[in-house]
């Protein structure tokens, strides 16, 4: 046991002390928070690029005036006594960036409206214009049909169904959208963790093999101790990285408002936030928050940690075995890695199905089958999973982790001391069934 501890310590310390570890550990949260800040900044300040738009309104759709929306910094100028053909060559020289042409049309037809520009138009600007035109056409048609637009506004409905989950302890509110997002993020995270740390284990083993240090170590410790020490050490590196990320992200969320008071004073100003919420949809933000609160957070966090550990240990053992049989050849490593990558990718695919239909046969199968369960179960658990399925899935994961560690240790033991020779699947099989 003392030797395993030493090996774990070395695996952990050499990785944590590396500059690249420090870099990724600090950069990733910065990048994430940076994106987050940019998205907020953009959504608050609206379309940043201001356009000068000339409108030739032959249908008199807007009656010569356009109501400017909040955050709409574009200016609209109506031009008269021109035709499309006559103004088209000139709008740029007259200082307009866009030229909107609305021909005359019947109320029953849809007009053929054209937007002239020098380059492809920004999607925001285009959809804003489309929105304005749609409203104007609707209004015109309502009037033509003798309906008061104000009355119509009151009649219009925009419904959001509330999903109440009747689970023993009374009614709980749930929002499918929130559960969907949380499931998806958790599933992707597990997938990425297994992939990143699994390949890290594989590279570590390959390094030991190509440096020929393996033979020196196994004359001091058992190969199994070396393999287990490496897997646990790298797993601990992963956990450390997560812990640091969580702390750094928390700190950044406190610090950023201090650094950019402009952006966040707007966000935290209740009047503006309320107005923004109103604009999105009455109370949608509140409902998202409520939805988050109704999720079984404790269970999700527990499952995340459990499936992270179980899945990592299972896949790390497989990746370690692959690393032990490849010689220096990178291409060979890719070939051998493929069978291990298959169930990972399969798990990811099933997970994307499972978040849409968490109780389908394939989702249940995927969340029980140990090679895919860490990913798929994370996609299901937010929706509520029967206890027996969760229990069985966890049991199978633990059993298969033990089983795979046992058999991969046999491959590993022989593989790390075999130099310069390509190992076939048949030989690996022979190492497995061999006694001793």
């Amino acid at each position, binding site marked *: 046991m*003392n*030797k395993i501890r*030493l*090996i774990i310590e*070395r695996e952990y310390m*050499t990785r944590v002390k590396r500059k690249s570890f420090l870099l990724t550990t600090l950069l990733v949260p910065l990048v994430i928070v940076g994106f987050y800040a940019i998205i907020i900044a953009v959504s608050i300040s609206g379309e940043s690029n201001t356009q000068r738009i000339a409108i030739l309104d032959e249908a008199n759709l807007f009656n010569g005036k356009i109501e400017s929306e909040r955050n709409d910094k574009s200016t609209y100028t109506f031009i008269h006594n021109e035709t499309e053909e006559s103004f088209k060559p000139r709008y740029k020289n007259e200082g307009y960036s866009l030229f909107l042409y609305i021909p005359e049309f019947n109320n029953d037809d849809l007009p053929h409206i054209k937007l002239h520009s020098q380059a492809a138009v920004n999607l925001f600007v285009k959809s804003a214009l489309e929105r304005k035109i749609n409203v104007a056409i609707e209004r015109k048609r309502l009037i033509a049909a003798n309906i008061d637009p104000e009355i119509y506004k009151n009649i219009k409905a925009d419904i959001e169904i509330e999903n109440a989950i009747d689970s023993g302890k009374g009614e709980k509110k749930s929002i499918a959208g929130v559960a969907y997002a949380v499931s998806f993020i958790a599933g992707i995270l597990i997938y990425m963790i297994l992939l990143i740390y699994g390949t890290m284990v594989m590279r570590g083993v390959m*390094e*030991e093999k190509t*440096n*020929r*240090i*393996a*033979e*020196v*170590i*196994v*004359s*001091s*410790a*058992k190969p199994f101790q070396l393999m287990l020490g490496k897997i646990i050490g790298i797993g601990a590196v992963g956990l450390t990285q997560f812990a640091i990320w969580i702390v750094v992200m928390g700190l950044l969320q406190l610090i950023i408002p201090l650094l950019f008071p402009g952006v966040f004073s707007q966000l935290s100003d209740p009047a503006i936030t309320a107005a923004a919420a109103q604009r999105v949809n009455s109370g949608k933000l509140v409902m998202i928050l409520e939805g988050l609160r109704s999720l079984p957070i404790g269970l999700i966090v527990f499952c995340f940690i459990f499936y992270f550990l179980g899945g990592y240990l299972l896949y790390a053992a497989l990746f370690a075995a692959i690393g032990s049989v490849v010689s220096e050849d990178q291409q060979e490593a890719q070939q051998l890695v493929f069978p291990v990558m298959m169930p990972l990718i399969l798990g990811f695919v099933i997970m994307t199905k499972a978040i849409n239909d968490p109780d389908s046969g394939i989702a249940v199968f995927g969340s029980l089958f140990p090679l895919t369960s860490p990913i798929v179960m994370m996609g299901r658990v937010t929706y509520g999973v029967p206890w027996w399925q969760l229990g069985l899935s966890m049991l199978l994961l633990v059993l298969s982790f033990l089983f795979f560690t046992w058999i991969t240790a046999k491959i590993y033991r022989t593989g790390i*001391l075999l*130099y310069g020779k390509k190992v076939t699947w048949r*030989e690996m099989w*022979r190492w497995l069934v*061999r006694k*001793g």
Partner: protein
Amino acid sequence: MQNILEVHQLKKYFSTQKAVDDVSFNIEQGSIFGMLGPNGAGKTTLLRMITGIFFPDNGSIIFEGKKFDAINDIIRIGYMPEERGLYKKMKIGEQALYLARLKGLSKAEAMEKIRFWFQRMEMESWWNKKVQDLSKGMSQKLQFVTTVLHEPKLIILDEPFSGLDPVNANLIKDEIFRLAKNGSTIIFSTHRMEQVEEICDHIILINKGHKILDGSVKNVKQEFKENLFQVGFEKRPSTISSNTVFEVTGEKAERLILKIHEGYKPHDVLQYLLAQGHEIISFNEILPSLNDIFIRLVEGTPLARAFQTINASV
């Protein structure tokens, strides 16, 4: 003297090779034991069984009078494999410390020993360097130090001088003698015969998985001697030719090489020559070098081992 290691009928078969087939030998405590053999003879497999890396298919290993128990006995063995291995990106001091602690030393003990050895081998300034910054010879020295650091009873060195310049090779050689004098037993595996002649007390020769020679260096040479003598004369005689006592097999400058016929002794040769009035200034026996013996024994067998299918259940 007591045997530190006894190997009885050791066998290790791989799927396509009888790597080690029924090899037995004993090693005396405190001796320097040479294990010779051409490439692919099975030396490394044999060493891996002695270091507990492989389990033998058959046979037994007795270490210090008890059945070899890899897990516990391993800390009294130091093994330097032919394929040198160190962590390239790890600092040298930390690496030595790690390897020493894996051998069961406490941190304080390990630090003390590392200081001693680093000083001895003039390596103190290396502590914070990485292995990738070292030359091949330097990392060889480091590997040697990490092998003997924990003062093992049995030290196994597989080609310890490859890649070393003569100065450093001598440094290591002196350390090997010193370790042996202090009671460590050394197994020295190589195919460089001149080193074996110089260093080893006892040798075995392995070829194709079998032991084909076993004995002290002196005895082996005696066994393979061809009764050749070199005689140096004051003046090159032209009248000596083959006769009943000896045969002239070669001549260079003022010297003749004679092969004594069976039934006669060196004494008879001298008498014969003196009787003829030649002035002899030197007379010595030509013993075969280990190199000659090695080549003679191994020659004639195909050098590369053919792969064969072996029933795994044997």
